[in-house]
C-alpha cells in the first residue's frame, strides 16, 4: 500500500471511522467520570463492535485490519477521553501476537477480540522506547525463570494477562497470568485517572507453552508492536486535541469579558489559530506513523519524528487550551482539564518530545559523521 492509498481509506475503514466517531461522540463527560478508570459496559460494547479484534485475523474473530484502522479507533477514543486500555490490549498486545502465530497466540487473540481477556504489554510499547531494563529470564529446562521489574504497565483490576518482554540470553515474549506465583502487581493511577500497575517479578516460572516468541521472532514482533503503539498514541493524541480545540473554541464564543465575547479578542483568536496549526501538523504525523507501522519495512526513525512532533503539539495545545479557558480551565469541573491531563499522559507514554528528539539527534550525529568520511 502506498501512502496515497493509505490516505484514501477503504470504504470499510471509513465506515469504522464514522461508527467510532458517532459512538464516541455520544458518550457524555459524566459517564466517563463515573466509570473511574474502566467501564465494563463500554468494554463489552467495543468487543461487540469488533474493535478489540481490529488487528486479529478473521480466524480469531477479528476484523483483520491494519494500523490505520486501529489508529482511527484510538483517535475516536481520545476524542471521548476514554480511560479503557484499548491501545494496550487491542493494539499493542494484540499487534505483537499477530506476528507470533501459534496455538497459544490464536486463542489469546480470540479472547482479546471477544473482550474476555484484557492483555497488558509489559516492558514494550507502552511507554514507547523505555530506557528501563526489562526483567531477566534464565532457562530452567524448557521453561524460563524471570526476575525483575516493570515500573509502569497499563493494567488495572480487569487486566487478566501480561505480555512480558524479557531479556537475558535472548529476548523473549512471554505470557503471564495475573496470579502467577512470584508476580506482584501493585496498582496505581495515571494522571488522567486510568489504571496503571507496577510489576515485580521474583523467580516467576514461565512454562514452555507460555513462551510466545524467542530471539529474532520476538524482536520482530516487539518492533511491530512498538510501531503500532506510536501510531495509536499519535492518533489518540490527535483525537484528544481535536476535542480540546473544539471545547476551547466553544468556550471563547460563549464567554464574555469587558462586554465582549472572548472570541472577539485578536490575541485569543491567534492563539486558537496556533492550536489549529499544531493539530493539523500532528494529524499529518499520526498519518505517517500509521502508514509507517504497516507499510514501511524499518520505520524507526520516522516514528521518532512523528512522536516528537505530536508531543510538541500536545504540549502546546494542552497548555493553550487551559490558558484560553482562564480560571475556569483550572477546575476539575470543566472537561478541558481532563483533556489536558490525557495529553500529559500521552506525552509521557510517547517518551516525551525530548526523548524522541534525543534518539533522532543521535542518528543525525551519525549522518554528519558519515558525511565527513565521504568528504575525506
Amino acid at each position, binding site marked *: 500500500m502506498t501512502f496515497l492509498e493509505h490516505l484514501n481509506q477503504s470504504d470499510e475503514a471509513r465506515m469504522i471511522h464514522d461508527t467510532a466517531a458517532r459512538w464516541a461522540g455520544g458518550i457524555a463527560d459524566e459517564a466517563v467520570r463515573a466509570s473511574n478508570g474502566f467501564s465494563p459496559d463500554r468494554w463489552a460494547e467495543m468487543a461487540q463492535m469488533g474493535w478489540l479484534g481490529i488487528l486479529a485475523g478473521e480466524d480469531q474473530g477479528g476484523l483483520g485490519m491494519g494500523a490505520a484502522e486501529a489508529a482511527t479507533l484510538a483517535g475516536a477514543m481520545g476524542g471521548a477521553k476514554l480511560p479503557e486500555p484499548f491501545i494496550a490490549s487491542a493494539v499493542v498486545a494484540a499487534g505483537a501476537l499477530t506476528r507470533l502465530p501459534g496455538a497459544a497466540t490464536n486463542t489469546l487473540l480470540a479472547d482479546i477480540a471477544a473482550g474476555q481477556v484484557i492483555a497488558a504489554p509489559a516492558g514494550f510499547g507502552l*511507554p514507547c522506547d*523505555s*530506557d528501563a531494563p526489562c526483567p531477566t529470564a534464565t532457562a530452567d529446562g524448557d521453561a524460563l525463570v524471570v526476575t525483575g521489574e516493570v*515500573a*509502569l504497565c497499563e493494567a488495572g483490576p480487569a487486566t487478566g494477562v501480561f505480555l512480558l518482554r524479557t531479556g537475558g540470553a535472548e529476548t523473549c515474549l512471554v505470557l503471564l497470568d495475573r496470579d502467577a506465583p512470584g508476580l506482584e502487581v*501493585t*496498582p*496505581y*493511577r*495515571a*494522571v488522567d485517572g486510568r489504571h*496503571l500497575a*507496577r510489576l515485580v517479578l521474583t523467580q516467576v516460572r514461565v512454562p514452555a507453552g507460555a513462551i510466545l516468541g524467542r530471539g529474532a521472532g520476538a524482536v520482530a514482533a516487539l518492533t511491530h508492536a512498538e510501531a503500532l503503539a506510536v501510531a495509536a498514541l499519535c492518533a489518540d493524541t490527535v483525537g484528544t486535541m481535536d476535542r480540546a480545540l473544539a471545547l476551547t473554541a466553544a468556550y471563547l464564543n460563549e464567554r*464574555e*469579558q*469587558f462586554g465582549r465575547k472572548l472570541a472577539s*479578542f485578536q*490575541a*485569543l483568536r491567534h492563539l486558537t489559530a496556533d492550536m489549529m496549526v499544531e493539530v493539523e501538523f500532528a494529524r499529518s504525523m499520526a498519518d505517517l506513523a500509521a502508514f509507517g507501522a504497516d507499510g514501511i519495512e524499518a520505520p524507526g526513525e520516522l516514528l521518532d519524528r512523528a512522536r516528537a512532533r505530536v508531543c510538541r503539539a500536545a*504540549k502546546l495545545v494542552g*497548555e493553550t487550551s*487551559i*490558558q484560553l479557558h*482562564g*480560571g*475556569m*480551565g*483550572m*477546575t*476539575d*469541573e470543566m472537561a478541558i*482539564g481532563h483533556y*489536558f*491531563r490525557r495529553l*500529559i*499522559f500521552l*506525552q*509521557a*507514554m510517547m*517518551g*516525551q*518530545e*525530548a*526523548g524522541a*528528539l*534525543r534518539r533522532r*539527534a543521535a542518528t543525525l550525529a551519525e549522518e554528519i559523521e558519515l558525511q565527513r568520511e565521504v568528504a575525506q
Partner: protein
Amino acid sequence: MTDHPKRGSQSPADHIDLLLDDDLRVFRHGVRAFLSEAVPTETRTRVDNGYVPAKPEIVAFLRKLASRGWVAPGWPREHGGPGWTQLQRFVFNLELARSGAPAVPPFGTSMVGPVIYTFGTDDQKARYLPGILSGEEFWCQGFSEPGAGSDLANLRTRAEDRGDHYLLNGQKIWTSKAQYADRIFLLARTDDGERKQHGISFFVLDMDTPGIEVKPIISIDMNHSLNEVFFTDVKIPRDGLVGERGKGWNYAKFLLGNERTGITNVGRCRNQIERLKRLARARGLASDGAFLTELARVEADLTAMEITEIRLLSAGPGAPSALTGPSILKLQSAQIQQTLQAMIVSALGPMAAARGKEFESAFEDLDGLSPGFFDGAVGEYLFGRAASIYGGTNQIQRDILAKMALDGRA
C-alpha cells in the same frame, strides 16, 4: 531516596551575594540561619517536591516567624512590621522559598493588612492586625466573581445598606484557602455608579457569620485549594466597612499595587533549577547537551528576572517604570515558572504518566528519587498553569504594556 535537599545545603553561595552590599549579606545570612532551624525536614521535603503544606504545618511555621516579628515583612515598624527595606524583603522572600518553608499566606500580611492600617479605623486596626502578625488568624480574598474574571469591576455581589448593617448577597469564586480562613475581605457593590468602578465598597467579615457557604473547587491537579463562597442574606456589621463607602475600587487597586516584592517567585525558581540538577543526575541527563542548554537558557532568564526585580525595587535612575515593571515581571515570572515545571515533567520521562497516593506508595524510589518528587512535580505543573492566569492573565499584562508603549498611557 535522596531527593530532599540536605539541611543547610539548600542555599549555597551564589551570584546574588555578589549583588548585595555587606549589610544585606549579613542580613541574608541571619535569615538563612534562622530558617534552617525553623523549617522541619518533612515540611521542606514536601514543599520542595511541589506540594502545598497543610494548615497545621503553616501555622507551626508562622508561630516561629512571629517569634521574630517576621510574619509581615512589608509592614512598617509602627504597625508591628520589621520596617525592612524593599531589598531586605527581596532577600527575605528569596531565602524563605529556598529554605523550603511553607509559603506565607499573602491575604492577611500583604493584602488586607496594609489596607487596614492605611485606611481602617483605630478599632479595626486593634481588632485585626494582631491576629495577622501572630500568624494565628487566616484570611481569604473575595474579589473575583463568576463572569468577572479579568474584568474585576464587573462584580455583582451587593451589600445593601440596612441601617445597622449591610445585607450581603452574591457569590465569589477562586477564593484560595477559604476552607481554612477565619476572616474574609471582599468587594461588594453598595451603590450604582456611572462607571462600573464606582459604588464598590471594601468590607471585612468573619467567616463564621451566618449565611456564608464555602464550596470547594477541585482544581486540575485534583487538589482543593480554591473555593466558591456564597453569601445569602449575610449581615455585615457597620464596622465591617473599611474606609469610605464607594471607594472600594481604590482600596483594591492600592492593595494590588502595594505588593511589588515577591511577585516573581525567584526563590522557588532557584530551587527548581537545583531540582533539575538532581533530576539530571538521577535520570542520566548530565551529558545531554539539549537538556543542559535549555537549563542554561532558563537560568539566564531567571538571572535577568532577579536583576530586573532588584532594579525595580532599588528605584534607581535607570529602574523600570513602576507602571511597566510589575507587568514585565508578572509575565516573565509566569513564563519562567512554567518552563521550569514543564522541564521537570519532561525530564521525568515516561513516569510523568503517574499520579496520586497509590503511586507514591507503590515505590520506594524511582531512579534514586522519591515517587513524591515525581508526583509533586506533575501536580505543580498542572496547578502551575494558574501562574499565567491569576492576577491578570498574560494577555492582560501584554495589554497593559502595549498601552504604555503605543498609547503613551497606563
